């Protein structure tokens, strides 16, 4: 008991220190939390005989809560009505994004001789941009006030929906395991049955959600919200269904209950604590020597998926009728990858093959390190990127219509 508490003290101390470093240097906290976990975990501090945080059951459960709350918040801010309202543009930009980037990741996996499920995991990690890092950088750089923020944020909304469907399918494929087509079929049927029912419940249960949270006391409010989302997510996982998608749907249910702002306000620090533990936990499970084994796919993925995101983002910007310059910025703005790539990596780690258990998580950690830094730097130095791409004077893009 005392030892476990001390380990947790160590965990939070490391998070606080790397968090302070991130704040001071103006970096995203996500890769630093992961890095803190790697360094303070069994594979680095442990190997050197220093005190370390073991990758125990309690950390794993708290990290799981982090995943649930991350996706719960995504659902809270996701609105089907909004997607429908600006549907055509978001749809076009989002489909381009999906159609360009997911296949590239899948293709890299297949070329490396991985199984289709392993390749699909790689595809997801490469496809999904980081809402947290992209949004933070948009605000830091002031792009939030410019027209390019609309296709960027719109595409992120589409990705949220895509990742929910993706996780629902891939969780069944990974956890359904090696029982052949029949077993996979059955686990997919359970997943879509459970999530379908949950989806209907949140669409028509607005009044119920509103009643649950109708309480003045803050403590009771927070506990009630957790008492809905955590058990439902747990039930999903017990059935082999994605707990993350279940949490996403519950978030959607709460978002129309009239309590959205209060939920965001009161739960945001709870989410941040558990999300930080989740990123740390990802680091704990990462053996840096495995990064060497993942180096080849990592190098290929960085070289191919950076320009592919820039290209898909550029086309997405054009779908919003932006000029060539602004569209290029949309592309640059979509490059950072982060939390959702790591959520997929955590799913892969629960898999059965050595590639899923070892290579893919190590790949994801290395990939998020590179892409979060590279993406942020590209955004900060987008003037250089623009000069590089539009070499040889102005293009006709400047003259084209500007979105109002």
């Amino acid at each position, binding site marked *: 008991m005392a030892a476990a508490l001390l380990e947790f003290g160590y965990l939070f101390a490391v998070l606080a220190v790397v968090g302070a470093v991130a704040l001071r240097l103006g970096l995203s906290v996500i890769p630093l939390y992961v890095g803190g976990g790697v360094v303070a975990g069994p594979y680095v501090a442990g190997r050197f005989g220093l005190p370390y945080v073991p990758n125990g059951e309690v950390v794993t459960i708290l990290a799981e809560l982090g995943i649930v709350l991350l996706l719960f918040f995504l659902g809270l801010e996701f609105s089907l009505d909004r997607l429908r309202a*600006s549907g055509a543009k978001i749809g076009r930009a989002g489909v381009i994004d999906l159609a360009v980037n997911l296949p590239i990741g899948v293709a890299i996996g297949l070329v490396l001789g991985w199984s289709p499920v392993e390749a699909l995991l790689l595809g997801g990690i490469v496809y999904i941009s980081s809402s947290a890092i992209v949004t933070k950088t948009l*605000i830091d750089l*002031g792009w939030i*006030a410019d027209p390019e923020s609309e296709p960027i944020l719109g595409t992120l909304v589409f990705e949220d929906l895509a990742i929910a469907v993706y996780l629902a399918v891939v969780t069944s494929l990974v956890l359904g395991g090696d029982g052949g087509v029949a077993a996979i079929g059955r686990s997919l049927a359970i997943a879509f049955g459970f999530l379908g029912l949950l989806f209907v419940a949140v669409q028509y249960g607005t009044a119920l959600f509103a009643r649950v949270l109708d309480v003045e006391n803050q403590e009771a409010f927070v506990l009630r919200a957790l008492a809905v989302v955590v058990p439902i997510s747990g039930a999903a996982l017990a059935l082999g269904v994605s707990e993350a998608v279940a949490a996403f749907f519950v978030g959607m249910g709460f978002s129309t209950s009239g309590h959205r702002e209060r939920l965001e306000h009161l739960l945001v620090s709870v989410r941040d604590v558990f999300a930080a533990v989740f990123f740390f936990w990802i680091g704990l499970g990462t053996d840096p020597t495995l990064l060497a084994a993942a180096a080849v796919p990592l190098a290929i993925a960085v070289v191919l998926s950076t320009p592919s995101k820039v290209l898909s983002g550029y086309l997405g910007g054009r779908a919003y009728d932006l000029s060539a*310059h602004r569209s290029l910025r949309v592309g640059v703005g979509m490059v950072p990858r982060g939390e959702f790539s790591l959520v997929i990596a955590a799913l892969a780690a629960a898999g059965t093959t050595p590639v899923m258990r070892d290579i893919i998580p190590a790949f994801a950690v290395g990939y998020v390190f590179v892409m979060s830094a590279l993406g942020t730097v590209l955004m900060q130095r987008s003037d250089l990127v623009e000069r590089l791409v539009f070499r040889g004077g102005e293009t006709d893009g400047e003259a084209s219509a500007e979105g109002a």
Partner: protein
Amino acid sequence: MTVYESDLPGVGKKHEVDLGDGSRLVIVTHNTGKREVFRRASADSDSEKLFELTDKLARQVGTLLEGAYFQPVQTETIETLLGGDTLIEWVEVGANSDIAGKTLGESDLRQATGASVIAIERGDEVVTSPGGDAMVEAGDTLVVIGPKTACRDFVALVKGA
């Protein structure tokens, strides 16, 4: 005035106000309540951040811009300055005002109201301690001192209908 509103999912809302000279004022309202105010010089240029405000401060500055906040604060400070019931008022002489085109002596407002004119502002020019022969014209601003009720009567008379 044209205002463009757009959603910023996960961030908040954005309003763009056309300033008429091709530039736009961009106001980003975060879900946290924070406001960021930018100016974009032209459609092709990048927005330049002017300032940011907390939710509370934004509302206060908003009432100031609206003109709803100015008057009470002004009166309050002046009352404290002079103490008692005495205050200083600024009043603009309307085009239809009875006193426009007359000297201070002719309209004799001190007798009528009990408030005295201590200065006349005309454009950039200021006539301090004007005598009875000082001419008042439409568009002038009179600076008046006196008891609160006297000042109120004075303002009512000068503004005219």
